[in-house]
Every structure is written in structure tokens, then in C-alpha cells.
């Protein structure tokens, strides 16, 4: 400690610290020498964040795992039932149906949201007059509340609605499409809304990735006479890989969590064709009050999300 004091003094000396600020510096050092309060400083800085995240994320996480092992209906005391909820889940056709729908969601949404926004980003990654306005317009669905988005699209999807008019008048279909009322179409109609909402968001992530690619790579390629198309294929896409990884992980987590669109547009119907895993959890918990059962389904959701993220990261890291 003594040596430390001296070296501090030397630094102070080098910086020509005035008498007054030297005095204040010593005051600041006093508590540290005493050991007590200043050792607490980092923890005090962390306290509010840890308290909130602890209370609303970490503790509930443990609680959810515990609750999934009980029979709990909010009125009577939870009763420990071991793995019963999980066993019941595995035999519940409604659970399997919601899992199937969530997987369908994943299989469609993730590839589309990984690939399509790359084109959008390439489209707006050029300084042209008005390009900022276009970026803003493409981003508009991102800032809109999902509930409002769901309602807008419900209106667009109406049997005699604007989308059907467009499809009929261009001759793409002969009869109006029952977007949300036919079990064969409903899930894909809801998926389309999720995609519509995500395009602008992931576009911006790719845009950031594109702008971090050094310009001189393209200039060199230009000199070598490499075509624009091959530049995109052999420079842009490979260097965009970190962004692709981020988008793949984020869009798969988002696809696993879909709720609002379903809640507003179809309530899980028709014939459960749009009931996703989260909607299943919501119904079990807040309509049927099977809290333990819902918690078990939640744990399954978490494990799937975790596995998915790890797989994504592994696949995209492997050959880097």
C-alpha cells in the first residue's frame, strides 16, 4: 500500500497537480485505504439493474422451472407432481399441434427473413436522392405495435378486402381467397404478416453489415473487371456472414415467440390451425388456469429456443 501511495504521488508530480487537487485526490483515496466503502462501489452501481433483471427474469426463470413440476391453478396451493406435466404434454394432441405450427412458422419465416432483407439492404445501400425516405418507409412496420399491425392486416385480408380485389382484378385468382378463415391458408397468412413486420428490422442490421465492408475491396474488384453480380456473390455475401448469423438467431427466436399476430387475427383458429406454442401457453395459463402445465410448456419453449440458437451459431461459425 505504501509503495502504491508513492507511485501515485509520482504520477501526480509528473502531471504537476496543484496543491488543492492533490488534497482532493487524497480524500478520494482515503476510503479505499480504509477498505470499507469503496469496495462496495461496483456493486452499488450494479444494484438497480441486477435487482430488476433478477426480479423479472432470473427469479421467474427458476420459479417457472419449479412451477412446471407442480399442479397449480392459482387458487389452491401448488402441489408437487414431478414430471407429470411433461408426461401430459407429450400425450396432448393440442400441444403437438401447436408445436407443429410453431415449427412450420420457423421453417418458413427464418429462411425468408434471412434472405429477403439482404436484397432490401442492397437496394437501399446506395446514396441516391430520397434514399433515406425509402429506408424510413421500409422501417415503418417495425415501429408499429404488433397488435395494430395485426388489425391492419386483418382488414387487408377481408374476404371482400383490398388484397382479394387486387388478386381478382389481376387474374391471379378466380375466387376470393379466405385468408384467415380457411384452415389451409390461415397459418401462412399470419406468417406473411410476421415477415412483413420483420423485413425492415433485419434490413437495417444488414445495412450496418454492408457499410462495415471496406470499400477498397470493391474498387480492387472493379479494376480486375469483376462483374457487379460476382462482386455481390464473392465479396458481399461472405463478408456479411456475421450479420447473417445475427439475423438467423434473432429471427428464429422471434418466430418461436409469435403471439400478438395470432391473438389479434385468428385467436388460434380456425380449427387450431394457427395455434402456436406461445398461444397454447397463454391459453393454458390465463384461460384454463393450468399454471403448472403452462409452465412446463414454457420450459419446452425455452429449451427449443436455446437449442435453436446454439445450432444456428454452430452452423454459421463452423466454416469461418
Amino acid at each position, binding site marked *: 500500500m505504501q509503495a502504491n501511495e508513492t507511485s501515485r504521488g509520482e504520477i*501526480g508530480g509528473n*502531471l504537476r*497537480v496543484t496543491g488543492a*487537487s492533490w488534497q*482532493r*485526490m487524497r*480524500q*478520494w483515496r482515503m476510503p479505499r485505504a480504509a477498505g470499507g466503502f469503496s469496495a462496495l*462501489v461496483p456493486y452499488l*452501481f*450494479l444494484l438497480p*439493474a*441486477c435487482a430488476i*433483471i433478477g426480479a*423479472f*427474469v*432470473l*427469479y421467474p*426463470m427458476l420459479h*417457472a422451472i419449479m*412451477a412446471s413440476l407442480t399442479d397449480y391453478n392459482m387458487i389452491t396451493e401448488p402441489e408437487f407432481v414431478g414430471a407429470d406435466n411433461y408426461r401430459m404434454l407429450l400425450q396432448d394432441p393440442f400441444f403437438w399441434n401447436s408445436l407443429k405450427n410453431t415449427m412450420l412458422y420457423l421453417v418458413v419465416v427464418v429462411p425468408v427473413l434471412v434472405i429477403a432483407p439482404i436484397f*432490401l439492404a442492397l*437496394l437501399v445501400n446506395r446514396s*441516391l436522392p430520397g434514399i*433515406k425516405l*425509402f429506408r*424510413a418507409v*421500409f*422501417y*415503418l412496420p*417495425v*415501429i*408499429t*405495435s*404488433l*397488435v395494430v399491425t395485426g*388489425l*391492419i392486416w386483418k382488414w*387487408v385480408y*377481408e374476404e371482400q378486402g383490398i388484397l382479394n*380485389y387486387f388478386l381478382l382484378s389481376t387474374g391471379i385468382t378466380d375466387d376470393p381467397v379466405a385468408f384467415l378463415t380457411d384452415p389451409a391458408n390461415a397459418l401462412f397468412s399470419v406468417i406473411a404478416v410476421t415477415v*412483413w413486420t420483420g423485413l425492415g428490422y433485419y434490413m*437495417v*442490421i444488414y*445495412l*450496418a453489415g454492408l457499410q462495415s465492408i471496406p470499400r477498397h475491396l470493391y474498387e480492387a474488384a472493379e479494376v480486375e473487371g469483376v462483374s457487379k453480380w460476382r462482386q455481390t456473390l464473392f465479396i458481399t455475401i461472405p463478408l456479411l456472414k456475421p*450479420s447473417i448469423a*445475427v439475423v438467423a438467431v434473432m429471427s428464429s427466436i422471434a418466430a418461436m*415467440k409469435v*403471439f400478438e399476430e395470432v391473438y389479434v387475427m385468428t385467436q388460434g383458429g380456425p380449427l387450431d390451425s394457427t395455434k402456436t406454442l*406461445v398461444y397454447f*401457453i*397463454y391459453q393454458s*395459463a*390465463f384461460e384454463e388456469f393450468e399454471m403448472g402445465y403452462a*409452465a412446463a410448456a*414454457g420450459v419446452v419453449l*425455452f429449451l427449443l*429456443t*436455446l437449442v435453436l440458437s446454439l445450432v444456428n451459431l454452430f452452423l454459421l461459425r463452423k466454416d469461418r
Partner: protein
Amino acid sequence: MKASPLAIILRYVGLLCVALLTMGPFLWLLSTALKSGSENIFAYPPSLLPEQPTLENFSRVLETQPFVLYLKNSVLVALLSVTANLMFASLAAYPLARMEFRGKNLIFVVLLSSMMIPFQLLMIPVYNIAISLGLQNSYLGLLLPHACTAFGVFLMRQAFLGIPKALEESALLEGLNRVQIWWYVLLPLVKPSLATLAVFSFIAVWGDFLWPLIILDDPSYYTLPLGVNRLANTFSMDWRLVAAGAVFSILPILAVFLFSQKYFIEGAMRGAVKG
């Protein structure tokens, strides 16, 4: 790298097509909201523009639903939670970026992993906790889960890591304490990251539906998304009114967005690079 005029025209055609895709539904909503009660909104072919534009749907919505109250609730909850998130996240980020202490790595990893947990899994226990803390039907209840996000802690930590250590050391020599250094030295230097975090958390709180849906049963605490949803249930599909309510709920965030577009897009890009 001069592009040919044809390439530029093609690019604008592409831009316009995508713009129609993202704007079209909004414009159709606006058109519906402005159509008078005598106009058939299911006419075939649909009239893209209202015959006699009217604001009567808006006034009817405001008569039947306290949308101004919902707006006030939304603004209040969003402002408070964004402020809290900026404060708490940047406070927590400071020791994680700049101090040595026992358990630092553990805290860091635990916070990091908390970002992986979807709220949908937590909603039941969080609901129970909120009930036992007496948080239902209160502003505090609405904002607390948004009051600090792990994402915010990481974003701010990244920002602090980019500031030269020498600045902080000379501030220490000048006799500033840690809180003063955080407030007077570090925060002013990370304003862009603060703006990014503000934008992200604003969008998240403003659009949040599931949490308020669970925690509120008193409509006088409803935020705009819940108000619009209620409207849709009340007038089960008088689309003029639903559309008017939806437009009403979009306008404030649209205004914020147009006003600070730079922060939204560039901020989101910064978040993408650093986060």
C-alpha cells in the same frame, strides 16, 4: 463505380415496389378511417380514396373510448421506462466495463444469459410476482419489467469500453468520485449509444401488448395497443372505427419517428454492429 441510368431507374422501380408493400396497408387503413358512414367500405371495386373525407370516425372513437387517456398512459410509461433503462443500464455497465471486483465475470455471464430467456416463458411467474407485490393496475407495474434490460447493459458496456482510460484517470486525479465520473465524463461521450438504447426501448415499450394485457384489468391504465384491441372487440369490426383508432395510435409514434428518423435507422444500425 458509375451506375448506368437504366440501373438507377430499375433501382427506383424496385424501391417503389417495396415501398408500396410496406406503405400500402397503412394507406388503406387511413383511407378507411376517413370514409363516412354512408359509404360502403366493402364496395366492389373498392374505392381507394374516400368519397367525402370525414373526421367523424375519429370523433366517434374519442367519444366511446378514452383514447386521450390511453395516449397519456402510453407516453408516461414509455418516457419513464426509457429513462429508467438508460439510467440503470449505464450505471450497471460502468463497473462491468471499467472496474475490477469479485464476481464480475459471473455477473456478466448471468446477465448475458438472461437475454436468451423469452418473456413468454416468464409471463406466469412474473404475473405471480407482480400480483404479490401489488403491481396490478399501476404505472409502476407497467414499467418495471422494462426498467432495465440486459441488452441495454451490454450496449452501454460496449460504449464505455471504447472510451480511453486516461480520461477517467485524469478525472480521478481531479478529485471526481465514481458517480461524478459516470455522469460528467462518461455519459456525455456515449450519447449516440444512449440514443440507440432509447430508440430500441421506446419501440419495445410503446408496442408492448402481452405484458399490459396480463397485468391490467382496469381500462383506465390501458396503453394504446390495448385501447385499439379493445376497440376492435367492442365494435366487432366496424372497420371505420377500428381504423380510426389504429390511425390515432400510430400517429404519435410516427411523429416521433419522422422527427428523429436519424436516430432510429442509424441508431438501430449502431446497435446491430455493436450489440
